């Protein structure tokens, strides 16, 4: 459905997408930055307020719709992907945005999440990954790093976390991006791309919960280390990063490798060039898998490939059926096939078919 170009004159300034409701996230919560980025993206995309439906589950992050002057639905824990699928199927002209936490989308709602990805419904899924249950005050989530001490894991967790990107790719996802909540510009840019992409776009935000899981992403996002620890991907560009922009990623056999330009005769020509649109997702998997300390964390749009879109295909099927239907109306359907008629004044049936 995305036929949006960047308008010459935005319809609304970013702040004009805010509702009149007082925002109640904790001061310093990463959710504020996500909202700023979303408002910037809406403004840049020139979205009308009434064409946007923001659907959320339950969690701190899921309060999002109340703060936006668009249509919004704060649903139940884990189910926003399912609700949003219904919204989109009812009205394909809507721009549907799902806002959900890591618990909401990967624990209680894990099933709906992977099926929404598999179906490739044309909507945007912003996954607020703070690696914790915020609203219920600090229990570990399906993305919490192994060994983390939380209120429900006083001795450290003994569970392996999901990697959001790998889950999305494993479910045949066609758009996956990762962004840190510290980079509003990058977030806004990625969200514009998510909206333009036709099909389900998953954007994982590494979101800091200042209260229950503060600084878990510090190594990735702090001023001092972020240049060395983030690889910001751009389609068609070589994968370079580092404080001096002298590091890069190259492919060695079936694995990635961090190399330094100028060392051992390495030049930019040795580096991988990012292809987000490549049909095979093998490299996207490798990029999504990169972990500190051996690798930087891949940010930006990791994968964006076109493919069959569920709601579009369903609409096309309905249109084709309307054109070739043998019934002109429901009345015609009800009278089709075997019927019999009782004439007034007789009790004998007459005629079949």
């Amino acid at each position, binding site marked *: 459905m995305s036929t949006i170009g960047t308008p010459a004159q935005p319809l609304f300034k970013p702040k004009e997408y805010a509702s009149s409701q007082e925002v109640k996230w904790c001061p310093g919560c990463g959710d504020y930055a996500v909202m700023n980025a979303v408002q910037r993206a809406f403004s840049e995309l020139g979205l009308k307020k009434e064409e946007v439906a923001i659907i959320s589950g339950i969690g701190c992050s899921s309060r999002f719709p*109340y703060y936006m002057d*668009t249509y919004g639905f704060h649903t139940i824990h884990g189910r926003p992907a399912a609700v949003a699928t219904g*919204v989109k199927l009812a009205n394909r002209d809507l721009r549907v945005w799902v806002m959900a936490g890591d618990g909401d989308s990967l624990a209680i709602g894990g099933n709906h999440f992977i099926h929404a990805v598999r179906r490739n419904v044309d909507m945007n899924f912003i996954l607020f990954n703070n690696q914790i249950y915020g609203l219920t005050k600090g229990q570990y989530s399906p993305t919490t790093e192994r060994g983390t001490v939380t209120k429900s894991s006083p001795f450290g967790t003994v569970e392996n976390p999901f990697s959001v990107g790998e889950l999305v790719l494993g479910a045949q996802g066609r758009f996956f991006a990762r962004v840190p909540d510290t980079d509003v510009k990058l977030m806004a840019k990625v969200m514009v791309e998510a909206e333009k992409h036709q099909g389900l776009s998953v954007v994982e935000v590494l979101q800091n919960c200042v209260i229950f899981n503060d600084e878990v992403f510090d190594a990735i996002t702090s001023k001092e280390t972020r240049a060395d620890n983030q690889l910001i991907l751009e389609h068609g560009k070589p994968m370079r990063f580092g404080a001096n922009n002298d590091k890069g990623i190259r492919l060695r056999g079936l694995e990635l490798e961090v190399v330094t330009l100028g060392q051992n005769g390495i030049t930019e020509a040795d580096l991988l060039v990012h292809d987000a649109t490549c049909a095979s997702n093998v490299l996207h998997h490798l990029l999504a898998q990169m972990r500190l300390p051996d690798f930087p964390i891949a940010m930006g749009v990791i994968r964006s490939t076109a493919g069959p879109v569920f709601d579009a295909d369903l609409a096309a099927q309905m249109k084709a059926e309307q054109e070739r239907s043998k019934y002109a109306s429901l009345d015609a359907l009800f009278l089709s096939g075997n019927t019999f008629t009782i004439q007034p004044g007789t009790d004998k049936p007459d005629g079949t078919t």
Partner: protein
Amino acid sequence: MKPLEEMSGTMNGKEAMESVVIKFAGDSGDGMQLAGTLFTDTVAVHGKEIATFPDFPSEIRAPQGTVAGVSGFQVHFGSSGVHGPGDAPDVLVAMNPAALKSNLKDLRPACTIVVDRDSFGKRDLDKAGFATDPLEDGTLDGHQVLAAPITSMTKAAIADAGLDNKTADRCKNMFALGMVYRLFDQPMDQTIGFFQHKFKKSPSIAEANIRALKAGHNYVLTMEAVPATYTVQPAARTPGTYRNITGNQALAWGLMAGAKKAGKDLFLGSYPITPATDIMQELAKHKWAGVKVLQAEDEIAGICSAIGASFAGDVAVTTTSGPGMALKTEAIGLAVMTELPLVIVNVQRGGPSTGLPTKTEQSDLLQAVWGRNGESPVVVLAASTPAACFDRAVEAIKIATEHMTPVILLSESYVANGAEPWKVKALDELPAIHPPVLTQPDPAWTPYGRDPATLARKWVVPGTPALQHRIGGLEKDECTGCVSHDPQNHEAMVALRRQKVERVADFIPEQKFRGKGAKKLLVVGWGGQFGTLFGAVTELRSEGKDIAVTHFNHIHPLPRNTASIFAQFEQIVVCELNSGQFANYLRAVLPQFTYLQYNKVKGRPFKVSELKEKFNELLAQ
């Protein structure tokens, strides 16, 4: 059992009957459902009253030849007096010993039993658990047995049709059906036409089935000694065009008609579960009519996608059975809280848990009325017969959309799979449906502003300019629609949601009862047991008994005049297929009356005979 020749003297000639019950029973691979359905279509098209009761085994393929694998299809047809599919067969077709065994205890005296003589070998008898051959050992004394070599005669009839043995074997059911057509003097053109059409591309299969059918017919015709042939006159009916319809099909069509009347697309979010799946499968055929069907990843996604579709302006429905209903509970609460129109269809089956998936029961009534967290009122309707599923579905959509509320529509296995003639309704005959949609900016509007008569809020769908708003499961302020934790406001909203549902009583028809002037005993029923309850009371009244019956389609809220009906009787007996759920509900909402109970929880419908016995007992007190 007497040899047929000895009985022929007394049994020859045609017997005219008001109504007859036939049961086709065989192994689940024997094609009994098809034989029964084809027979039903024929008698329906020729103007009989009908009611059917398909009875499937739970396992798709239970061991062949065992009692667990028996599949049955009972059809009751006649010129009058067809209230439900009948207590016990007048004619039983048993394709093997297991089919005979599983029906033995239900046989009427002097039943006509058609069996396949070829399938009563030692091994067959062993598998069914018969120590001796019931055709020889006196088990069937008093019945009229027509033991035809169905398997071998079918093979002979189609020997040169060029079919392999297995395919040839599959035509046995048509031989048996041909025999039944002859016994009841019914034309076969309808069934022949069915095969010609269905197997247009494989004429040899069509030909084989038709030959088997004719061979069965001729077998009975040419037999010197036929136990009896029956004639049944067409039913006296209101003029009009009729078709044979199952409950699930009628329900699906009613949903389509309701959405059309509301001027909206129909959306179904559903997950397969017996006995509700047919509704989804039927609706999936009708994309041409603007029907959107999402086969969701589970029941929760089924209802949640429907809630999303309702928010965005479709007439939204989810269909399921008991276990799926349990999964939908939390989401129903969301629809209550957000006051969105939603129809939830529960085709009840035996429970709890997986229970009796293919058997009928009425045990989800209290779950429908009260089974949610918080004070969570919804409208509850129940369908009384297969054809009535159409009207209830239209009504469910009318109430849901006009009153902005979830509506639970209870069907049950017995109604869903049963069939009866439906007098086809034109869309013009159906009530108009006017959802309270708001499309123009209105300064006086608030998200929870209400219509003074119905208390319904407006349906403002995303895409509508200048009316953006947010809804959700958190309590909302009565005036502004913003999140509110205010204690006064919560109490007010709880009351408003309750009153909104109670006010639906102002918009539904008054409760009716049959039996003017009766005083002694009022029979109360609900949902799918209408036919038998009505039949039993009608028979007793014709015997001069002081008895009446009232049957509920509107469970919550109850029709306004319910108490005034109850007050006219000395005794009230509530009859239902559970341990007393409607009775307990009535005790809670109309505590001024005393309710006796008659309950059955066997996965089977009531029988007219057992009801009459119970009512006679109560009348004698």
